[in-house]
């Protein structure tokens, strides 16, 4: 684990966001340092993806301040976030169905040669990137529309690695992935940390969270509900922060199964 | 308890609007005459005769439905006299009758609107077609009897196009060798240009000796296509539009039909004011025509003229339709001098 020092690269102070009649985020705080992996966890509909989208510029915030390397910044559209050095993998992927794998990977950051697209260089690089994530895709020239759920997810992850970000945000990156690909992504997260990047990882899988995260921030019904050092916190503590109760479906299920086993 | 709209009903907007005359013109896409000439001439005449009279004008954009709406709107506004240039003269039977029931008088302008109209001012459309045919025969001269002719007609969906066509056939069928190709140009220059191209491909470059074009706009495109293939045969149009007069000057077009809009408009204006003021129209409308069941409609019937290079001065310029300067732009200066216009 890398030691965290100095001011956070990214900090959210009192961020709120409302959709029509739904107050999705209320006064949320979050800090990410260089070389730190922050896991963002919470129940379904807790507001995790909404938080990510406010950082990535997809939904501008209603209230609050976003600070980048100590200075307040305004992120009004995805372009702003990218210019700062924030790369995001969205839960809903957001790929262009009609473009092929190569086109999607380099969208917005195409490699050029004499001012025109350098398809050869991009295709070569795309193959390399996908190989590091050990995914098998029939051809990098078929449109995204023809890929399986997991294949699309890997393409989205690889997309975040093109360019040179300082913060990488992964919204449930392994949800659709097989065991092998999940392991590769966890490895990747660790490599990113080693290289001094800040990572925000959203996941419902506590085992994964405990394996790679340094701190865990819990969201509940759109509000902060505690922040924990992974090393010193138990599985149960996190889960009860997520569900807001020590007696929940998970514990009941475990108890029942234990009973059945008797 | 329910009933028909009847004349017994109170007269909606009779409220003191008796100084308004309605003017409904049919379209403005294929010909510029309506808004360039008819409308200002009529307005001028009406104001001359009745200084505080107002013209309520609307254009139907080639839609009978739209024209009916405009007609109804005028009546709702309390207009007592309507000068109606019907887009579809056949369709107005019920309109005119409804108007008459409400005490609104209709002057049929340019086209004889069916129904009990109070007066009629026009050139005869079939006569126009005949003149077009005769103009082409004259342009062909001695060779007319051995000449094959291509006809590019107006839009099949336009009832007036049929009348031009009938008139032209009346003359051409007997005086030329044959109509070797006949198509609708839909009143559109581009379409007419393509049709003549197809005619050339089908008949060969010397397969015809003259072209009938139902109006000047189409004639322009036809001439462009003929020239680009190096063919020179007489082409005639209708409307005496400025571009056509210029082509007459340069010798590209043989003739056009000039309907002197001013006398037509003057007559309409005078009739309308007379009707508005309750005067007799017989003094202006000296002849009569019959229209279906309606006999003896007081009418002013005017004669259209064929314009050729030779009589430009005596027609469109004399009538102040165009100034010499309009016609003789830099491009046509030399031709104008040669034609004695400048």
């Amino acid at each position, binding site marked *: 684990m890398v030691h965290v020092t100095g001011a956070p690269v990214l900090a959210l102070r009192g961020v709120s966001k409302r959709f029509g*009649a739904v*107050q999705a985020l209320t006064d949320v705080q979050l800090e990410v340092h260089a070389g730190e992996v922050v896991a963002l966890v919470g129940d379904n509909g807790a507001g995790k993806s909404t938080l990510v989208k406010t950082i990535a510029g997809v939904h501008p915030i209603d209230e609050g301040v976003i600070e980048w390397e100590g200075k307040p910044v305004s992120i009004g559209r995805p372009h702003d976030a990218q210019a700062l050095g924030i790369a995001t993998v969205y839960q809903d992927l957001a790929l262009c169905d009609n473009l092929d794998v190569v086109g999607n990977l380099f969208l917005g950051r195409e490699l050029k040669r004499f001012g025109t697209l350098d398809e050869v260089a991009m295709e070569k690089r795309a193959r390399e990137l996908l190989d590091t994530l050990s995914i098998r895709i029939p051809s990098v020239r078929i449109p995204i529309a023809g890929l399986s759920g997991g294949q699309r997810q890997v393409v989205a992850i690889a997309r975040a690695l093109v360019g040179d970000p300082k913060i990488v945000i992964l919204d449930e990156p392994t949800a659709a992935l097989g065991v092998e690909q999940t392991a590769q992504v966890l490895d990747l997260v660790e490599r990113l940390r080693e290289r001094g990047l800040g990572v925000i990882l959203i996941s419902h899988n506590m085992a994964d969270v405990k394996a790679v995260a340094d701190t865990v921030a819990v969201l509940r*019904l759109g509000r902060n509900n505690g922040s924990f050092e992974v090393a010193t916190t138990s599985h149960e503590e996190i889960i009860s922060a997520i569900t807001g109760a020590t007696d929940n479906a998970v514990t009941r299920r475990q108890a029942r199964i234990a009973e059945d086993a008797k | 308890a*329910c009933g028909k709209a009847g004349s017994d009903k109170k007269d909606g907007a009779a*409220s003191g609007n008796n100084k308004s005359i309605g003017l409904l013109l049919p379209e403005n896409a294929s010909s510029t005459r309506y808004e360039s000439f008819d409308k200002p001439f009529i307005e001028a005449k009406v104001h001359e005769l009745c200084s505080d009279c107002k013209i309520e004008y609307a254009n139907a954009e080639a839609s009978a439905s739209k*024209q009916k709406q405009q007609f109804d709107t005028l009546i*709702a506004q309390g207009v007592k006299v309507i000068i109606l240039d019907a887009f579809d003269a056949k369709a107005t039977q019920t*309109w005119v009758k409804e108007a008459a029931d409400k005490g609104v008088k209709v002057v049929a302008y340019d086209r004889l609107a069916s129904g009990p109209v109070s007066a009629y001012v026009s050139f005869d459309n079939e006569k126009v077609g005949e003149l077009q045919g005769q103009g082409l025969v004259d342009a062909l001269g001695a060779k007319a009897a051995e000449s094959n002719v291509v006809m590019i007609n107006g839009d099949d969906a336009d009832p007036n196009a049929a009348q031009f066509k009938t008139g032209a056939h009346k003359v051409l069928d007997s005086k030329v060798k044959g109509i070797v190709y006949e198509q609708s140009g839909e009143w559109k220059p581009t379409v007419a240009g393509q049709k003549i191209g197809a005619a050339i491909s089908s008949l060969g470059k010397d397969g015809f000796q003259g072209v009938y074009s139902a109006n000047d706009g189409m004639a322009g495109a036809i001439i462009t296509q003929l020239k680009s293939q190096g063919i020179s045969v007489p082409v005639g149009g209708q409307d005496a539009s400025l571009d056509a007069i210029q082509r007459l000057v340069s010798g590209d077009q043989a003739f056009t039909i000039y309907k002197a809009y001013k006398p037509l408009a003057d007559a309409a204006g005078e009739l309308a004011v007379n009707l508005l003021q309750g005067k007799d129209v017989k003094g202006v409308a000296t002849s009569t025509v019959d229209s279906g069941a309606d006999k003896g409609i007081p009418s002013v019937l005017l004669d259209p003229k064929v314009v050729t290079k030779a009589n430009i001065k005596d027609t469109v310029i004399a009538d102040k339709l165009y100034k010499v300067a309009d016609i003789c732009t830099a491009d046509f200066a030399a031709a104008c001098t040669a034609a004695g216009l400048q």
Partner: protein
Amino acid sequence: MSTETPTTPTPPAVDPRLLVRKEGLAGYLDEFGRKVRSGELGSLPVVVGLIIIAAVFQWKTGHFLNADNVTNITKWIAGPGLIATGVVFVLLLGEIDLSLGSVAGATAAISSVLAVRQGVNEWLAVLIGIAAAVALGALHGFFFSKIGVPALLVTLAGMLAWSGLQNLVIGKLGTVNNLNDGVIANLDTYFLGDGDIVWAWLAAILSIALFAAGQLLDARRRTAAGLPARPIAEIAMRTGVLAVIVLVVAYVLNQDRGLPLPLVLFVGIVAITDFVLRRTGYGRQIFAVGGGIEAARRAGINVAWVRTSVYMISAGLAGLGGLFIASQQGSADKGLGGANMLMNAIAAAVIGGTSLFGGRGKTWSALLGILVIQSITTGLDMVGAEQAIQYMITGAVLLAAVVLDSVSRRTQKSNGRG
């Protein structure tokens, strides 16, 4: 299937993040203010636009709001309005139908020629005409949903072909005048309450009562089932607003000749189609197909049939609209239902608030939209604007009407998940 009790019943707590509306009128106004701010305006901009248009023309001409002018406008909206209703149906599918104008023209031609030239009973001729329209729609639907040709192209081909058919049917003799006092002619000239105004009032009051009863019954059932329901105060207010509009319109129209039959029929058809769309399984299927074809297909919906039937309905409505137009102009001619008519119908549907992207809209928007367009046209005609200027103003006003609408919709759109 899940009637069994769940093993771990969680109490159905209300989401604390949901801003619940306060009770009573204050709550209603509060929510209304919030909606205006966040851009959910509904048909408010169109209604405001309509009021502005009416005010401007009334001020300019002095007789725009006279009884007989209002009567005229309400008579004229029926034909294009029915076509616009058809457009709403296809827009709900996320598709377009360019042939509706030609279908209207062809229908009018067929019915008129049959009745006038062939001497067929006029009611029968009307039925045959509408059946033909539905058949044309079925043909479009077949090529679109079974063969898979894009709807824009099918209906583009239809537009050309059926206007050709219209020309052929009308033939060399040209324009066909309506039979005097016939079915088609009466469409335009018949007035409810002409002579006896009681009937006109009765129709107006009946529609208000039906509305109030429906709302009250619904609220009662919801309360009984333990679901949140509309408070009585709100129902009273909504009924009140509707009552004022209906009664004022009825009053003004009664000043002239009573409720025009075309208006009554048009409003009736709009109300019925609205009911079909919102309250029946078939309507739900149309929305589903418009919202996501694949999702609808996987839900076991017969997508091809829904699409075909919608094209049949819209063609049928257009055909009916064509008969109204023929009635209004006194004849069926070769130009009936030309390109402008179609453009107006599409514009009307969209101005009224039906989305071009499918799955969102109401048939009432056809009524509102065509009212806006007809008011502008009539007003400009009355002012005597020059043709070129008239084109430009119509274009500009259309734009202004939808800019407002679009800006207000933007917030909602940006909330959509991508």
